[in-house]
């Protein structure tokens, strides 16, 4: 049994909230620079240059890349031989978010209640928390604050098995066209296929957070990742939706076994900021 104190978790989450909001992930930064070189449409190139300068400024000044510093989504992967001491784990996570958003000058964007009151909680809590229990004695934390410009454009559809791969392609393209300029292209796209209504949404989010250039283990899905990204970048939507090639920086697929009667598909979209940062304790 390895002991980890809640105060260590709080501190880690505080730091991850700030870092994820002020610094582009390395993989995103690399693919962004590559696509900036490849982009030929003038207004698209100008837009990408401003975004590139924006990322440089944010990193240098430790300022948020974007004003929407998101709702904090926290993935906790906990080894079954870890013993958490020093109080409530859940409260330790919320406290980390509270400190990060306060001390990092991040925007507080959470309302206490979704429909009637909509009063800002003023400390960006509660976080959205997912727990996975795995073998071992490590505790891995990923903080992925999600902005809602792109979150509002995510979609899910319960396809029929007979819709097949064509049905998936059609749906993904529909979602991207619907999203267009609203999702702040260039986008980072995650597609989930399989599982159930709830599982497929999470799969798509995990796909979105998977590193750029990583691939599905099945060669058929690898080919589909490539083909879908090419299709998205042939829509002409372009950076900021003003036209161009660079509509998406990456597209990953995650899959899971499903029921004989169904083929759920979900598409998660993030803007180029793709806020996520992880640590292993």
């Amino acid at each position: 049994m390895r002991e980890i104190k809640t105060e260590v978790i709080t501190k880690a989450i505080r730091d991850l909230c700030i870092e994820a909001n002020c610094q582009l992930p390395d993989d995103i930064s690399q693919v962004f620079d590559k696509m900036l070189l490849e982009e030929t449409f003038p207004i698209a190139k100008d837009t990408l240059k401003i975004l590139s300068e924006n990322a440089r400024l944010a990193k240098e000044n430790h300022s948020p890349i974007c004003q929407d510093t998101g709702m904090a989504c926290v993935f906790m992967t906990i080894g079954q031989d870890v013993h958490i001491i020093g109080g409530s784990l859940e409260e330790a996570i919320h406290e980390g978010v509270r400190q990060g958003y306060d001390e990092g000058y991040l925007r507080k964007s959470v309302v206490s209640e979704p429909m009637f009151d909509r009063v800002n909680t003023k400390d960006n809590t509660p976080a959205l928390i997912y727990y996975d229990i795995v073998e071992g004695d490590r505790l891995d934390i990923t903080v992925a604050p999600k902005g809602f410009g792109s979150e509002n454009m995510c979609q899910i559809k319960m396809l029929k098995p007979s819709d097949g791969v064509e049905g998936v392609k059609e749906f993904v393209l529909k979602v991207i066209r619907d999203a267009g300029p609203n999702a702040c292209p260039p986008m980072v796209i995650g597609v989930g296929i399989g599982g159930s209504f709830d599982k497929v949404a999470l799969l798509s989010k995990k796909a979105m957070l998977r590193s750029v250039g990583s691939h599905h283990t099945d060669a058929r899905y690898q080919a589909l990742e490539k083909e879908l990204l090419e299709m998205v970048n042939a829509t002409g939507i372009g950076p900021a939706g003003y036209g161009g090639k660079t509509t998406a920086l990456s597209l990953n697929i995650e899959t899971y076994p499903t029921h004989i009667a169904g083929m759920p598909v979900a598409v998660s979209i993030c803007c180029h900021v793709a806020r996520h940062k992880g640590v292993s304790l």
Partner: protein
Amino acid sequence: MIRLTTPLTIDKVKALKAGDQVLLSGTIYTGRDAAHKRLVELVKQGKKLPFDPKDQIIYYVGPTPAKPGQVFGSGGPTTSGRMDAYAPTMLSLGLRGMIGKGYRNEAVKEAMHTYTGVYFGAIGGAGAYISQCVKQAKVIAFDDLGAEAIRELDVKDFPLTVVIDCEGNDLYEIGKKEYLGEKV
């Protein structure tokens, strides 16, 4: 590149075409969903607004808190479609420009045509960059809304693109077609 200064008069709006790139300087106002809801309620009650919208521009933004020594936090545009329900009322009061990102509905486009308004796009995600264009900022109404309060901003060379002009031309359609080599 077109240099524009506020107030934005009808003549200036009529000269703008979808796709024009603009550097905007002068005074503008911020407002998102919650502030718009209150503004439109004030209009319904026949009360005075915190600022006269005639020939002015509203920027759809909710900035991050300014750090010590900073005038304005990161502040890129939010999705404009959420303001579609309120924009025609504001345009009818003489509001001349809106800055945001994303699609607008037909009712807004019609109101822009009727009252001569323009919709500018700022680059979504360029919050830190845009912050540098803001030289002064002060809250003038609805302080309790925090990031969503109405602020008066003094901006210099704020980079914008005309997305929808007062004739209804829409860069989100035109730009895509031009890139794809289709007939515009």
